[in-house]
């Protein structure tokens, strides 16, 4: 959710993409090159009756509406109970008001609505997509309202979902990228709540109680800790009514407190995890930037050139195009409430892991030392600013961005001024920002692979 996710559900067999932009981790949006659509995208915002913020975009073309309710209730709020935020979020629609789980899912299905929930480190989200046909929308909204306001949190549901999460956790242990990511966050964040794995741990999930979940819900699922996002073919007065309906019986409560600042990594750490895989998965990084970072745009453009934009970026050129060392290689900043990670990653066959790591590090060092060329900067700016229209070409994309703007309290003209901020970035600023902010000598390096043939 912090970054844009486009998922195209296709009705096709396996698809193999030349290179996943997925992994190129271009973590930000371009915007605002002055096209009509940009100027036409009016984000309206107000405070609802219960003290929550509402963000609304009128998109009348298709007879549908996307609704997000986002709480500041991600796993960073887990405290000493990892997985608590995710389990609370998961159980919301497992029985609410007068309806059990079966009835809830049937109520959405019979009106063609799509409903889901998700928890991340910062956010806990409820998503609804519905047709605007009156009876169907009314029914879908009513179901969502009850889920928000009257979740049952029954023990039988917890017991079952606990088992399912435990298997999911076990499943993660067979995925090198999941193993690497957990180790990476642990290495980067130490005692900071961002170190907590969102799904929790086997121990913590086994120990979770209903009382924990109810307490978490009561504390964080309150109106003043929520934003409501509405994008679609509803007018403003309808949007107001929808937002107030969804929040109506929620206590006003208080916003979540500020998360602690993230400490810098003091010295380089290498974490090696043995795994019986043919490749070694490598992640290198350190705490990066937050959403309101003064170096935000400078680091964004710099990363685009370093390894954030796929083919032609430094890392992909050195690792893949020149040497054929990996299918996917990338760098990205993942901006969050507090400093999210700066990450460089790739996976390569075990025998050449060391070589790939060296190329990755020397590419970074060269970039920090010399900065980008003027030519690279011009070309990055063209890509970022010229691609604005693409980033907001569906209601789904618009909803994701507006939710991001709302949750992180970014200015409402964020999209319109984005290109201007990009255009202002200079080679010297990038060089200066990377020198100050990225220290190649205090990186957390994670290697997950088969080291058994090594001495």
């Amino acid at each position, binding site marked *: 959710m912090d970054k844009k996710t486009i998922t195209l559900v296709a009705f096709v*067999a396996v698809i193999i993409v030349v290179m996943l932009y997925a992994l190129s981790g271009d973590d930000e949006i371009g915007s605002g090159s002055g096209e009509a659509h940009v100027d036409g995208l009016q984000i309206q915002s107000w405070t609802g009756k219960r003290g929550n913020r509402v963000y609304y975009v009128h998109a009348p073309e298709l007879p549908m509406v996307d609704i997000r309710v986002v709480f500041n209730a991600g796993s960073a709020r887990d405290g000493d109970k990892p997985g608590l935020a995710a389990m609370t979020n998961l159980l919301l629609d497992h029985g609410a008001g007068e309806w059990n789980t079966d009835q809830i899912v049937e109520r959405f299905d019979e009106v063609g609505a799509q409903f889901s929930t998700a928890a991340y480190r910062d956010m806990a989200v409820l998503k609804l997509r519905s047709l605007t046909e009156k009876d169907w929308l009314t029914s879908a909204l009513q179901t969502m309202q009850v889920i928000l306001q009257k979740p049952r949190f029954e023990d039988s549901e917890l017991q079952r979902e606990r088992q399912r999460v435990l298997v999911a956790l076990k499943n993660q242990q067979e995925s090198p990228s999941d193993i690497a990511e957990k180790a990476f966050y642990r290495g980067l964040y130490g005692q900071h709540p961002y170190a907590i794995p969102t799904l929790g741990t086997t121990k913590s999930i086994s120990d979770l109680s209903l009382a924990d979940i109810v307490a978490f819900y009561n504390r964080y699922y309150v109106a003043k800790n929520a934003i409501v996002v509405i994008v679609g073919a509803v007018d403003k007065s309808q949007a107001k009514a929808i937002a107030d309906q969804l929040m109506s019986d929620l206590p006003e409560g208080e916003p979540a407190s500020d998360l602690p600042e993230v400490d810098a990594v003091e010295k380089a750490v290498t974490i090696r995890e043995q795994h019986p895989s043919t490749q070694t998965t490598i992640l290198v990084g350190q705490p990066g930037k937050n959403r309101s970072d003064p170096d935000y745009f400078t680091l964004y453009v710099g990363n685009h050139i370093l390894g954030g934009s796929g083919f032609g970026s430094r890392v992909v050129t050195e690792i893949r195009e020149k040497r054929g060392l*990996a299918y996917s290689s990338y760098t990205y900043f993942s901006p969050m409430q507090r400093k999210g990670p700066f990450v460089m990653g790739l996976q390569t066959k075990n025998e050449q892991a060391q070589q790939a790591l060296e190329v990755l590090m020397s590419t970074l060092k060269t970039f920090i030392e010399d900065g980008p060329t003027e030519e690279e900067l011009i070309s990055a700016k063209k890509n970022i600013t010229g691609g604005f229209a693409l980033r*907001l070409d569906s209601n789904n994309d618009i909803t994701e961005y507006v939710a991001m703007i709302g949750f992180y309290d970014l200015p409402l003209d964020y999209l319109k001024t984005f290109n201007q901020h990009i255009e202002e970035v200079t080679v010297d600023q990038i060089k200066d920002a990377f020198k100050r902010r990225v220290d190649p000598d205090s990186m957390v390096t994670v290697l997950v692979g088969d080291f058994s043939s090594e001495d």
Partner: protein
Amino acid sequence: MSLSYHLSANECEDTNMRSLIFILIVFLPPIASAEQRVHEYLLDNGMKLLVKQDHRAPIVVTQIWYKVGASYEYNGITGISHVLEHMMFKGTGKLGPGEFSKVIKEHGGRENAFTGRDYTAYFQILEKSRLPIALELEADRMRNLTLPEDEFIKEIEVVKEERRMRTEDNPRSLTYEQFNATAYNNNPYKNPIIGWMNDLDHLTIADLRHWYDQWYAPNNATLVIAGDVDPEEVYNLTKKHFAAIPKRTIAALKPRDEAPQLGPRRVVVRAPAKVPYVLMGYKAPVLKTAAEKWEPYALEMLASVLSASRSSRFSKILVRDKQIAIDASAGYNMHSMYDEMFMVDATPAPGKTVEEVEQALREQLNRLKTEKVSDAELERIKAQVIANDVYEKDSVFYQAMALGILETVGLGWPKVDEYLENIKAVTPEQVQQVAQKYLVDDHLVVAILEPQKDAKTPRRKPSVSVPTRH
């Protein structure tokens, strides 16, 4: 199946526990295009152009679909269509390696490509005024690819790394690969799209040159343009860039229809997994092959009754009520060139064995043969189909993709408009009939993933990392 090209890498760890089958095959209809019709044009050189207007945002999606993919391949060169797809970015007479991507990037665009069993497709997404750039570049690489050997020697290693990442180090992918290899004897669906490692080891630049000459021609391609465009203008631009490319003779593909399966087949995959997994499939016809044209729609409905959503039977009965599986799904793809598998998969709940799960899945399948599905179930699914028909219009890319696939597998794009009505017409009797006819043991294939404790990486013969030079 999800093609995600901007996936957030870590702030997105979620509680999604859907199983592999959802990644591989998915129930979902193509979009129907009631209000904005598709404009179809045929160039003199045999290239087809389809234009779909969507004026919501000032963008244009360009997709070029070639009739070639893994199902066109044969033993010894599996994976070649996908490797060629990689090499399509490695330069033409006009552009050096990587320059295609660079030009698109400088115009603010995104681009990529994908290879399936029955097609290879390339796409660009650009601000609408930049359409001529995409057309010029695609026309150039349709005929003028240089296929330099030094680039190939590097790129084949990239593809092998891709195979390691997607398959070798992913126990469920390995299971799916073995499942297909067991399911088919003589039909090319037995081979993985990415190719067997041994074939990748021995692929040569000469093989690729031959494959390119054989399949990359205007009369073997469909260009799909969707977005904020004017159809006549697009047609004129397309003629400007592609009309000069001459038609070529495309050799007919041998049919290679799968020989009848004479009894159930089972395969066990032992891999360093932590969680067991069951994957089952029954041979079933698709739109292209079905004698009765309603059958694929009834099979799709059958899959939906089982697992279209969380109110479907697998979720309700196996996951929530009996708690025998932590997830279970069914899937069927009616848009293939050859007969497909109606697939079912599940992950056992803690304390349950794969045998118990398989038994539970079979009970659900049997029930569909003996009892008619309820009207309420069918109505729920139809409501979702009607809604999806609107939701899918939110993605310009998806709209173009639906047209491209149908055209490329030989069904013709107008099928896109028939989906909604045909699905709505499916009756409970028809669902029962296809269950009785196709969910039979003689056509069953089962793959079981057995986790191996402390497994070492399987020993393989060292791969030949440098292909023979010619």
